[in-house]
């Protein structure tokens, strides 16, 4: 049996933890904890990028890792925590589907994700190609988090987790995107969060709550 090098094992462990964290987010209903999980996911992404940079010796991956650390581990969680404090949102209301049900759907999704990633992974020449399935799974699980939540804040956390999955996917398939694109994407994410911050205050001012129940009046035949 061929022996997997230690750093690759570490990378695979990071990928596995990333997926576990996605499941944890699916089950977590406290918003503060949800943001912490997101930060942890960012940290895993940071470690994985760093390991990969060290392994492949590609300098742009170090920049990418620094970007992940700054944005996804420090800036965004800090911003979200500040928002949570100011807006005093603690708990999400009951999700649309109960936790065991969501978990089951999540499991099926993971199987589907691996099936989807299989043909691409076979074509990839990167050492991390096996993680591609995990990346797709993280994206899809984040998507489920988004659609089963009622609070605006948890939907945003889901959105950011999806972004994490996308970055991880880019990394495992191609060792990251061209630098200019990565910067652009990071900038967009940051601006999106700032816009959302403003937006939350507007919603709050108008409805006294961040529950999306309030945002259901625009129907077709009003």
């Amino acid at each position, binding site marked *: 049996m061929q022996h997997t090098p230690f750093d690759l094992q570490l990378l695979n462990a990071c990928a596995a933890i990333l997926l576990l964290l996605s499941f944890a987010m699916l089950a977590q209903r406290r918003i503060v904890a949800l943001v912490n999980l997101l930060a942890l996911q960012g940290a895993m992404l940071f470690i994985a990028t760093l390991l990969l940079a060290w392994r492949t010796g590609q300098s742009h991956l170090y920049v990418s890792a620094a970007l992940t650390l700054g944005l996804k581990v420090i800036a965004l969680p800090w911003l979200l925590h500040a928002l949570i404090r100011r807006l005093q949102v603690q708990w999400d209301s009951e999700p649309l589907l109960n936790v065991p049900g969501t978990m089951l759907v999540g499991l099926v999704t993971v199987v589907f994700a691996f099936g989807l990633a299989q043909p691409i992974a076979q074509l990839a020449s990167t050492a991390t190609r096996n993680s591609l399935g995990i990346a797709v799974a993280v994206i899809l699980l984040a998507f489920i988090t988004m659609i089963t939540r009622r609070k605006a804040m948890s939907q945003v956390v889901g959105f950011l987790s999806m972004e994490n999955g996308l970055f991880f996917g880019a990394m495992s398939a191609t060792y990251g995107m061209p630098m200019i694109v990565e910067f652009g994407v990071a900038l*967009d994410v940051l601006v999106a969060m700032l816009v959302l911050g403003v937006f939350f205050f507007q919603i709050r001012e108008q409805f006294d709550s961040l529950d999306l129940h309030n945002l259901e009046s*625009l129907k077709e035949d009003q």
Partner: protein
Amino acid sequence: MEFAVLLLTPLLGALLLAAWGARPRAAEINIALSFGTFLAALAVTVRVINEGNLTAAHEQFFLDPFNVFLVTLTAFVGLTTSIFSRPYMRIEAEHGRLSQGRLRLYHSMYQLFMTMMLVALTTNNMGLLWVALEAATLSTVLLVTLYRTPASLEAGWKYFILCGVGIAQALFGTILLYFAAEKVLGAEGVSALLWTHLAAVKGELEPTVLGLAFAFLLVGYGTKVGLAPLHNWLPDAHAEGPTPVSAVLSGLLLNVAMYAVVRCKILVEGALQSTLPSKILMVFGLLSVVLSALFLWRQRDIKRLFAYSSIEHMGIIAFAFGMGGAVANFAALLHMTVHSLTKSAIFFAVGHAAQKSGSQKIEDIRGLLALNPTIGWGLMLGSIAILGFPPFGVFASEFLILTTAMKQEPWATPILLLALGVAFAAIFSRVQSMVLGQPTGRRLPHQPALLPVFAHLALVLLLGLYIPPYLADWYRAAASMIVGN
């Protein structure tokens, strides 16, 4: 040089207007900046006509017949919308719907939106295209919620989340595209996302990966185009935002998103050596036409009505691009132009009509012809144009699309004709009731600017009667480029 001016004018303008704040003449500065952008676009166009395709900034930006005409169109509609918005926003402020701070936000974001549209059109880098389209969404989210009413917040949230999720799919598609390109163009990553390089080697790109990439890209950018069933954000965002924003969303953003879809389609079709992407585009297009025609009947809000009409026309354009072939592509490009001009003209007229009546509800708007003949005629003629009456340009493009459909996809023709008929009846009956009848309304504190409405309609009329030869050549060059050989 002209290129730098084209992109930097609106970008610096956004900063200037943010700093300018509530001081007087912000609206005039907005017009001046848009005019500058338009002049730069014209200069760039002239250069492309004389010298052929252009690239700039280490090939990160490029112009070819396909995007240069959209650049001119975008800059033109940007200019006329800024002219329209000056009295419109003033009236809104006077009616107490907007504060000075929000006007500052509006002006600054308007210029930023224009920058992002132009970057998205001119960039050669498929990754930057993604970045610019996302940035364009972000810059308009706060414009949709400008009035801070519950409904506008809901519309803004929907817009943000749906387009955000959609565009995340497009990012995944872009990653897959890069993945396939890297194998052919080398891992250095410098040229692997550049469209011109990709187009040169599209036959060698891995078909399975590109097929998957197209699915994601189509869903992602298709959400922005407003293709059914991903169109939910569109009517809300159009109806709840200020009217100049509705005009640029319908007239520009949808076009640019469609442009992104077509760019992706060219690559994928080259790699797949099959017409599957075209078939998918055709089905999405047809579905949009049919669904929006049905939804048109249920609309009671005038801006929602025309937002659904935008979905319908985007469906027609998607269908035409899907059919492919030189004639269909030519017609699709023409339809993009005339739809953009007509729909923004309609929104200008609709905006003032709603201000006059104090409501966007169709049943509250009556007797526009008696109340203000220019607004009334503007809305009437605009609706006639968009419904495809000859001699307006929409007739010419729809006629071309239908006749090509009869030849290439006969099964689709009756569906298209029926949907167009249903849409016609729905819009015409409503517009008639608004334009005729007993007037109810109030005086506006400022003279509305209706010159843009008639300028747009005159252009549409001109395009219906006579397409200048250089413009026709241009469309033809773009159309044959999209065909891919």
